[in-house]
């Protein structure tokens, strides 16, 4: 299975709400996905219903938390990229199949990523996430 990552439909809807200055919040939270086998990211996934049978981790250092750094960058045109960097530190043995990058209200997943293979985290292991999203007009 390839590593898959995508913006979700609900994530795009939240982005449009932000542009319209309606009630919405920006990219602030991140959570690890729990599944024993690799999942496949899908645009139809939501915060409440992640890809395949994946669920959100709720403990052991992998639960939803504030993203360490969110910033802007340039790929093709000035400021066309958002970057997000985060480190999870596991406090028990857990499988991590992917991540959800969420809004500050913790009710919308902007980005869903399913890794190539399940990462078998053990106590004190770390998972560093280096992510970026670009709006490309090329």
């Amino acid at each position, binding site marked *: *299975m*390839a*590593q898959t*990552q*995508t*913006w979700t439909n609900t994530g*795009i809807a939240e982005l449009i709400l932000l542009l319209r200055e309606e009630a919405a919040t920006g990219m602030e939270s991140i959570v690890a996905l729990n599944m024993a086998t*690799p999942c496949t990211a899908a645009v139809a996934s939501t915060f409440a219903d992640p890809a395949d049978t994946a669920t959100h981790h709720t403990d052991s250092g992998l639960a939803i938390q504030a993203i*360490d*750094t969110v*910033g802007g*960058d340039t*790929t093709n045109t000035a400021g066309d990229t958002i*970057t997000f*960097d*985060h*480190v999870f*530190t*596991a406090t028990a043995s857990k499988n*991590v199949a992917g*991540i959800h990058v969420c809004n500050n209200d913790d009710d919308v997943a902007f*980005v869903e*990523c399913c*890794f*190539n*293979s*399940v*990462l*078998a*985290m053990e106590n*004190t*292991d*770390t*998972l*560093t*996430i*280096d*992510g*970026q*999203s*670009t*709006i*490309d*007009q*090329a």
Partner: protein
Amino acid sequence: MPTTRMKGRMITKVVGEHRIGICEKCGVKTVKEFYMDGERRRVRMVCPNCGELGKLIARTTAVQAPQPLRCFRFKCVAKFIKDSLFCALLSDYHKRRIAYAEKNRHKVIPEKYRTGEPSPKTIWQLLVATHKLIYTS
């Protein structure tokens, strides 16, 4: 009303790096360190004594899907089929590589299986590399 159609798309790239959270040299827990990478503020886990990163177990790799088919000439279709095959084989290689690296987290294995670099560049190289992985794991 005239419309302007742009070829816009959202491109997302994510890399996950799984490391042991204890420094191999000093035996102490690594701590979060923020640093600047050009304009970008980033974060990593380093040993508070020696500044080393924890031992890498596996780094995930995002595989770029082939460009969509834009013409139906033989040359275009053949290139699309070749690119799709390469993409499928590369995805399979990285899936097997990470599973192998995770399974052998405490063993000494070639670093290319942990980092994913250098990655095979041709279909033939991919077939050989995947075959090797199947028979070593």
